[in-house]
């Protein structure tokens, strides 16, 4: 593929979607992406910039796409999963070189939409660093509108939802941003 200089790439870009195995056990939550905070993600305080948390969650989502069958070939055929909303929660700062381990939980779905919950934890201490709640929509990229997922893709995400059904509902899910007054 033609590389546009300087644009945003993901570490999984170009990797073919995995072949789905109906018999395989599905991790709950999924653990599909680990990384180490690189120098270009640091701000002038030597902490990871806000937007780079979203890059890391996006990289984990890209790994998830390839896990369920959405890769370059799938997108070239005219469909994709677009992010409709993201709600980020920051709990701790990240310093240069810290190991980051991402988890992904499928909270809910219908024929066109996926409701995801991500956690970013420290790769060694397992301390919770940040969370992200996302709503994704399956779109016809040519028509620019949402459409149902094809049957095989829907079967994959349904199997994941079933595997994740027993996971507890994360406390932050569904809560809007607000100043919660204690008095």
């Amino acid at each position, binding site marked *: 593929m033609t590389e546009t200089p300087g644009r*945003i790439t993901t570490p999984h870009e170009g990797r073919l979607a995995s072949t789905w195995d109906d018999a395989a056990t599905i991790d709950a939550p999924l653990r599909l992406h680990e990384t180490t905070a690189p120098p270009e993600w640091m701000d*002038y305080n030597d902490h990871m910039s806000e*937007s*780079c948390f979203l890059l890391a969650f996006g990289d984990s989502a890209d790994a998830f796409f390839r896990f369920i069958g959405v890769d370059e070939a799938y997108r070239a055929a005219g469909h994709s999963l677009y992010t*409709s*909303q*993201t709600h980020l929660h920051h709990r701790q700062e990240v310093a240069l070189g810290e190991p980051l381990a991402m988890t992904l939980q499928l909270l809910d779905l219908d024929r066109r939409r996926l409701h995801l919950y991500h956690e970013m934890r420290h790769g060694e201490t397992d301390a919770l660093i940040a969370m992200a709640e996302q*709503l994704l929509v399956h779109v016809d990229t040519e028509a620019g509108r949402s459409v149902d997922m094809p049957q095989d893709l829907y079967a994959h995400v349904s199997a994941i939802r079933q595997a994740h059904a027993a996971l507890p509902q994360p406390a932050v*899910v569904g809560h809007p941003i607000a*100043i919660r007054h204690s008095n």
Partner: protein
Amino acid sequence: MPDRTAFGAYREQVRPEWLDYNGHLNDASYAIVLTRAHELLLEDLGLSAAYRESHGASMFTVEMHLRYLAEVSAGQTLTAATTLVEADRKRLRLHSELYADGVLAATGECLYLHVDTAAGRTVPLPDDRQARVDALRDAHAELARPAHLGLGVGVRP
């Protein structure tokens, strides 16, 4: 007394390094744009980089909620309309409409905490900054609140 209109100082061309394989603004880049727009408002309140230097305190983002409404391409001009929604002694809540060539492309909402950077904990704003925050909050109090404010992910207004 600040203007009784949304804060609109931000104006910038889409940068090539913000795009992804679709040739569109990447999800994470909307967060960059939102942060840059909000930084201008924080600067206007005297709560940006110079304040961090002089006071050893800073506004930390604890939550960010983005709603993606339209694709954004190279060469488009980004602008923002930012409202101070809510504030107390330690917390500030901002909402922005982000526009690309005048078309609403996203909304973003952030919750900030005022943090003593050495102690690593929240502290009340100094009186002079609190006065500026209160004045802006009062100026923005009459502005229409978008229907999605105060709704979680997946909830439709």
